[in-house]
């Protein structure tokens, strides 16, 4: 079947923070860019980020990008690549100033500079005391940032393909990426977008968990596409559970609440974080706080009739501070927890929030697929024409645990650097390679299979089973027998996912078809996560194993690579050498 085809210099998939920052850079460079998004750009999940953007501006007191770098390396439990981390922390202030110049409505200090609030794991002088580093717009920083970036793209006349879902990568025999196949949701039409460079900014995949702060659209589409095209996924065992999701609803309550002075209580009113992190207390890093909370609940000190949540107290901040700095939190709490935080504490539980792993990339946003592994061969081999930035990428800046605010910093810094790399690549490679004959074959067979499936599996049911399996087998605390059983269960589900059936066959805005295609991506992410977690026999950052309670640098200071083909695993070393700074040697991590 002949397919419609369009050609561009660059195809950007995803229009959240990273995609929009990249698109802006590319449009302003005069390139012919197509930005694909499943949703109108301002509906991307960046919109839900609340607390702020981490950058050592030093507006509230002394700060340094070296301290930010140290905090990020320590936060990552030494799994983060130090070259990438240095690059991000060094570029962060510039990225924030630039966003301000674009019109971002940051909160301000009396002297007119950008207001910064304290955040978990961010410290002065290499861990000494909390620092105010999070640049924010009340508790709507993501919303303000996403809209500002979209607005700037309107000014730059960026071309958007709104409500188009990318389905598969197009690679030629040499492995070069030449664009994507995509579905226009309104018409149901399939198209090949032929590109000289392809940049993924497809976001996270928190929807593999039953209890998640993530939006419905966070289904790991970029990861699924990469995995199906033979590209490995890195460090997928590392999932961040945010300490404060609204109990029962999963809606995010920003760490900024604790940054502004709120704290957690157990059922007897004890400020329990003092026991787990005597120095930074409630502002310890997220993996530490989530584990402490899960321990409190496990040991019967949870609040509520079933002792299954904890309490986030902030009424002592007073209504003025709450309404000025945390108005969105008050709104969410009233709506989703029936609690006005001006008077009563918010019931919260650790909730799946962020994927530290993703498509392997370097600090330039180039996608990496090692040629050989286990110490020999080209471990930094670039996939020509393919770039990734933001949550879908594993650069790896967050390692085994991301610090709050570093996700937005990541989007800005690596969205831009990936776009700069694309610009350089296109200048050095002026031609356009032809599409292979079978460019759309994988996509077409997926669609044909889906449309003709009889007696198949329900998309909703298989999806719910995946979420239950991940939640039960791969949560905050992990156990060897549960992980092994989880691998078996997720493989069974992967098999069922190949037989999904939809009853709706309409061409027009068929959301049943979209959800089925999203499930193809979810299952790859879930498999990668479970298999990688089962294999890692240590506890590091967000990965906590009952049978190996300690971090094991001798054997496990390395990145996991999962390949879809046969669930194969491989490993590559962590970049311990920064670009210019001194290497931060692993040590015991306490807060």
């Amino acid at each position, binding site marked *: 079947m002949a397919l419609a085809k369009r050609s561009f210099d660059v195809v950007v998939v995803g229009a959240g923070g990273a995609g929009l920052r990249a698109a802006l850079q590319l449009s302003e460079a005069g390139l012919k860019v197509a930005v694909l998004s499943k949703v*109108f750009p301002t509906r991307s*999940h960046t*919109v839900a980020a609340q607390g702020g953007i981490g950058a050592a501006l030093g507006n509230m007191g002394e700060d340094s990008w070296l301290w930010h770098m140290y905090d990020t390396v320590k936060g990552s439990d030494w799994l983060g690549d130090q070259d990438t981390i240095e690059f991000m922390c060094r570029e962060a202030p510039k990225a924030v100033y630039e966003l301000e110049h674009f019109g971002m*409505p940051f909160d301000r200090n009396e002297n007119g500079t*950008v207001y910064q609030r304290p955040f978990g794991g961010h410290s002065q002088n290499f861990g000494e005391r909390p620092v105010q580093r999070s640049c924010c717009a009340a508790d*709507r920083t993501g*919303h303000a940032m996403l809209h500002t970036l979209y*607005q700037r793209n309107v000014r730059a006349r960026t071309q958007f393909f709104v409500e188009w879902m990318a389905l598969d990568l197009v690679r030629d025999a040499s492995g070069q990426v030449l664009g994507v196949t995509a579905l226009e949701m309104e018409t149901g039409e399939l198209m090949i977008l032929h590109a000289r460079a392809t940049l993924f900014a497809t976001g996270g995949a928190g929807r593999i968990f039953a209890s998640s702060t993530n*939006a419905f659209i966070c289904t790991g589409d970029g990861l699924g596409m990469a995995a199906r095209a033979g590209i490995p996924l890195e460090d997928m065992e590392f999932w961040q559970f945010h300490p404060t999701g609204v109990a029962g609803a999963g809606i995010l309550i920003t760490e900024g609440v604790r940054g502004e002075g709120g704290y957690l209580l157990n059922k007897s009113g004890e400020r329990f974080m003092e026991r787990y992190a005597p120095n930074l207390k409630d502002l310890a890093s997220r993996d530490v706080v989530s584990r402490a909370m899960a321990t409190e609940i496990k040991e019967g000190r949870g609040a509520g009739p079933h002792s299954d949540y904890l309490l986030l107290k902030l009424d002592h901040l007073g209504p003025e501070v709450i309404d000025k700095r945390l108005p969105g939190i008050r709104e969410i709490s009233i709506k989703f927890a029936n609690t006005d935080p001006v008077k009563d504490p918010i019931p919260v539980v650790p909730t799946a929030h962020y994927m530290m792993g993703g498509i392997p990339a370097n600090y330039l946003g180039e996608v990496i697929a090692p040629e050989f592994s286990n110490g020999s061969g080209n471990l930094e081999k670039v996939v020509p024409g393919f770039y990734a930035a933001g949550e879908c990428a594993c650069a790896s800046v967050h390692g085994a645990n991301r610090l709050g605010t570093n996700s937005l910093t990541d989007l800005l810094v690596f969205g831009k650097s990936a776009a700069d790399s694309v610009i350089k690549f296109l200048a050095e490679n002026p031609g356009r390679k032809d599409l292979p004959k079978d460019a759309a074959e994988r996509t077409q067979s997926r669609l044909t299979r889906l449309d003709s499936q009889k007696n198949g599996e329900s998309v909703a049911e298989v999806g719910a089973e995946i979420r239950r399996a991940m939640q039960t087998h791969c949560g905050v605390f992990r156990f060897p027998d549960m992980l092994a059983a989880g691998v078996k269960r997720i493989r069974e589900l992967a098999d069922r996912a190949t037989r999904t059936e939809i*009853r709706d066959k309409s061409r027009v805005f068929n959301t049943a078809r979209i959800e089925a295609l999203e499930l193809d991506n979810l299952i790859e992410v879930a498999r990668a996560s479970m298999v990688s977690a089962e294999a890692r026999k240590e506890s590091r950052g967000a990965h906590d194993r009952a049978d190996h309670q300690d971090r094991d640098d001798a054997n496990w200071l390395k990145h996991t690579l999962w390949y879809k083909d046969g669930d194969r695993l491989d490993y590559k070393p962590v970049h311990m050498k920064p670009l210019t700074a001194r290497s931060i040697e692993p040590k015991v991590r306490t807060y």
Partner: protein
Amino acid sequence: MRFRIFRYDPDKNDKPTMQDYDVRLDPHDRMLLDALVRIKEQDDSLSLRRSCREGVCGSDAMNINGKNGLACITKLAELKEPVELRPLPGLPVIRDLIVDMSQFFKQYHSIKPYLMNDDLPPEKERLQSPEEREALDGLYECILCACCSTACPSFWWNPDKFVGPAGLLQAYRFIADSRDQAAGERLDDLEDPYRLFRCHSIMNCVDVCPKNLNPTRAIGKIKELMVKRSV
């Protein structure tokens, strides 16, 4: 719980109909969107947009028992049965609860929704006092859900010529920004019998805004500025 939902699929070439659904809810289902997700489990052909499920992305705006709102922050307990759901009024329907929002976004884009400042930016941030920044509160929080514009009779009559409450709220967001230098140009652009002056302060926009914003007040401020500069 009982629902009566607008259905239309142009691919089937049928006329629009209202379809009844009876759904058994889970005790955890609080919001209208939770119920719609249940319905979609029974009938995968029901089409709607949704994403963040917490009222910040603006995807799931619809007409709920006659009033525009977001399904994800509308409490089921507060709805009268059968809950009647229709697509946002005044825009072409693509399918079921999904409308074509092109006209809405075209109006938003028409106000040049970006900061205009031709000065070379400083090395660090542009300074802005807390009071200047406060002038943007109640404006920048708009989520572009279109509840307001599609509740506005003036927008229904002239969607191609009247900017509508959402676009005008954003126009004022930039006029009010101490860093923006194009207030004059922005006012010129709106000084037109349709673009701004079709607003007759009916205030449906204020009534339906899920973020409790007040486009009518912003429109009033724009009008004030126009009067001020003409005297």
